[in-house]
């Protein structure tokens, strides 16, 4: 059985087209999967960092995830706003919060220089810490995000500045 040149070419063209469509399809699929993976990582991080509720209706293309603020989210934002009201150099991203654009909200808390500057100013403004006492930017970050007092005097400084209510005495 001998195929003519014309049919050989036709067969090769059909095969190549087939392979081409296949590669194209898998290329698109791989890119979509990559985008979905990144989106799922962002959703997870925001859920965790801003104490959100999450509803995952679809975790594949087209991805359908919705995040909702909780009472714990409000608490984080209230701590942030209280500091920002007194120290406006720490931006409180009102518009992004309104829009529930948590990725943009997160960016406002990423400037470690500003956090350090504000926490230094807080220690200076308060009469409580002795000369030389200080805190790092993570102290302010951990206070806003997790309500943690991870450095000596930070709790007293926050109470002294009126940002935290005075401790209840049992």
């Amino acid at each position, binding site marked *: *059985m001998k*195929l*003519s040149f014309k*049919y050989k070419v*036709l*067969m090769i063209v*059909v*095969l190549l087209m*087939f392979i081409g469509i*296949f590669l194209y399809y898998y290329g698109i699929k791989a890119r979509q999967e990559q985008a979905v993976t990144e989106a*799922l*990582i962002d959703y*997870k991080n925001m*859920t*965790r960092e801003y*104490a*959100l*509720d*999450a*509803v*995952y*209706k679809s*975790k594949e293309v087209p991805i359908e995830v*919705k995040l*909702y603020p*909780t009472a*714990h*989210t409000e608490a984080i934002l209230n701590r942030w706003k209280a500091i920002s009201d007194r120290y406006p150099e720490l931006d409180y991203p009102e518009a992004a919060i309104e829009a529930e654009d948590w990725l943009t909200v997160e960016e406002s808390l990423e400037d470690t220089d500003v956090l350090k500057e504000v926490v230094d100013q807080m220690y200076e403004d308060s009469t409580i810490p002795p000369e030389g006492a200080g805190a790092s930017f993570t102290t302010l970050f951990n206070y806003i995000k997790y309500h943690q007092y991870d450095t000596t005097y930070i709790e007293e400084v926050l109470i002294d500045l009126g940002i935290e209510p005075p401790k209840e005495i049992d």
Partner: protein
Amino acid sequence: MKKRIIVIIVTVITLLTIAGYLITERLNAYQDIEEVIEQEFRTLRQYVEDVYAIEFLDDDRALVFYSWDFPAFYNFGVMELEKTWQGWQFVEAISNRMERKRAWLKGVYAEIGDHVILRGPTWASVDKIEIITADGREYIPELGRAAEWQMWYLILEDEPFEEATFILYDSDGEVLHEEVLEFDLNWPE
């Protein structure tokens, strides 16, 4: 004759591709629900999780109750899985933030798939919970255990309620605690 050869070759390639795809799908389809659950946690990136309970609604539907995020595990999830010819498949998942801290129990209302679920964390020392609604209905929720905490859950088939009294008992039948919990029936909107 030559045309027929081309048709045969193209058809064979197409069939092989489709068969290959189906076989891969089938191989990827885990039949073991615990493996599927692990896989879904990895996909959702909800790492370091505690599974409290797997509730089989019928032969092909299951709800997985879990919490995630080390070290606090404050994010309480429930995931619905469905068994299809491809094995157990993800249907929907929700995650609720409940900071348990020193609370005796917490609870939220949620809808997942066609089901209404009330659920939340409680201490390990709790052996039984009794729920009494304002209109006198009584429910005994299930308890699922993981590490030093438990999750209570109630798959509700009747009318949902906005608040109810929760009575917590220990293993001797003694009342440990009594509390009224409120539920937001409009969650998540």
